[in-house]
């Protein structure tokens, strides 16, 4: 049998890096299947089910549950989520009368202002760090955001 260990190790690293659990490759009558343990079953103690899950928890600010910073990894590596670098209030435009900085479908470049986070009466402009296309605005104008919360999703330009 003719096995290229290096190639296999390369596959292993890729699976791990992207947090994947299984891969199967067929070429003609050749087939390689790789599985990482975690996919089999969650081993160990699950996160505790706290009584707060009964719905008593208040989330009027839209915080907490929707926090994308701890969300499952995006499957698509070209989708970039711009997260809030500070706690404050999210604004899509520089003033109530003005037009939004970006809309879904806007083409953006590195440095384009995407939105403003107001904190402490200061307007902090959030700039884009990649070139691409805005695919989603993740929070509403005037809503509070916490550190690390997703603001805008951008598809990186190929």
């Amino acid at each position, binding site marked *: 049998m003719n096995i290229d260990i290096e190639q296999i190790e390369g596959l292993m690293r890729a699976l791990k890096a992207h947090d994947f659990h299984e891969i199967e490759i067929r070429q003609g009558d050749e087939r390689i299947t790789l599985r990482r343990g975690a996919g089999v079953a969650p081993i160990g103690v699950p996160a505790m089910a706290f009584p707060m899950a009964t719905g008593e928890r208040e989330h009027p600010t839209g915080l907490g549950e929707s926090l994308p910073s701890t969300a499952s990894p995006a499957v698509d590596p070209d989708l970039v989520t711009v997260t809030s670098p500070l706690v404050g209030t999210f604004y899509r435009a520089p003033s109530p009368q003005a037009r939004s900085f970006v809309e879904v479908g806007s083409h953006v470049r590195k440095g384009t202002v995407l939105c403003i986070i107001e904190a402490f009466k200061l307007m902090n402009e959030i700039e884009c760090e990649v070139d691409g296309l805005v695919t989603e605005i993740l929070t509403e104008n005037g809503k509070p955001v916490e550190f*690390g919360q997703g603001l805008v999703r951008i598809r990186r330009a190929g």
Partner: protein
Amino acid sequence: MFKKVLVANRGEIALRVIRACKELGLRTVAVHSTVDAEALHVRLADQSVCIGPPEPKLSYLNIPAIIAAAEISGADALHPGYGFLSENAEFAEVCRRCGITFIGPSPEAMRAWGDKVSARSNAAAFGLPMLPGSGVLDGADHARREAERVGFPVILKASGGGGGRGMKIVRALGDIENAFYAAQSEAMAGFRNPDVYLERFIEHPRHVEFQVVADQHGNAVCLGERDCSLQRRHQKVLEEAPSPSITPALRDRLAELVTVAVRETGYTSLGTLEFLLDEGGEAYFMEMNTRVQVEHPVTEMVTGLDLVAEQILIAGGARLRVQAHRVAPRGHSIECRINAEDPVTFAPSPGRVTEYLPPGGLGVRVDSGIYAGWTVPPHYDSLLAKVIVHATDRAGAIARMRRALDEFVIEGIKTNIPLHRRILDHPKFQRGEVSTRFIEGMQR
């Protein structure tokens, strides 16, 4: 009175404040760093806001982020806990400017009593006993005269800094001259300032502190003392109330003095005045802490008061609910700080808690922010849990603590429970013969 309290802290003290708020019918907002997203204080608060990455200066010490969190969550009051921003008078001022009630003393009172020099001059003005010492020494001859006046042993200290540099302990008159020159040159080398002063040196000091509580209507009450002599590298390890080191006469005298000093300086909220006791039982004022202490529960156990609820109500303008000028302790209470650390090397031991079962039953209280499955992050202090017991007398409290520690299950990380067992089993501790050098001596 405010309606929603932001708790600007983490761990067990954040939980402590959240519990008090819930019992008072107040809403709570937890703030947390990204690494604390699953922490117990976050889970038990009504609401939570992530304020930054794990590094304390970017999260729990990040004033703009915390104020913004209060603003977006609509919190109209803020409890700072202990550590972090709790003794930062500027932070208290920012809160005031933003219309957020800071649950603690006024910024002015924090400055007056939080600064060591100012606190000492306050204390001296109200007749609190001060450690005998000199001003800056002119020369070896001046040092000799002052040392004789203060009485041996003395310690020479650099005016410009601390940390042991420039410190020299002198036990006999013949050694003063050499020590003075050595201290002076070390001070010069270390702090670019040759100024040196001296103080009476206490070989085996005991640490006794008095808890006061004062409202905004001129009422101040002393809730007795705590003994915090059991320390390791200036970190308290085990505390108790009442102190086995103090005589009833000294207790009465100091309680009276601190109450007057606090009331007359217009201090409000909780405050703790720390004293050192020398081997002869004389007390000397050291400093004041202008916030709730880690070890406040032992005072709660022997007075029956909820200090944090009291602190919150006072910040809301309420009058003190305690009527008496002084509250007499009932029974005896001990607190053991359970830290995530190797019990022998004292190295921190963060990591995943795989099993957790706190002790229960009569007279046992546990204040803790951990649970099975949670990972203790390495970014903050190592305090996992406080076990507090109450019994009718000190021997009963020691037996109860021994029993409680025996049934405490924390797996996955190392803790200092074995150290506490050794302390509790030590005949000298059981006789109440403690000092800040006890643990160091025990390990030899």
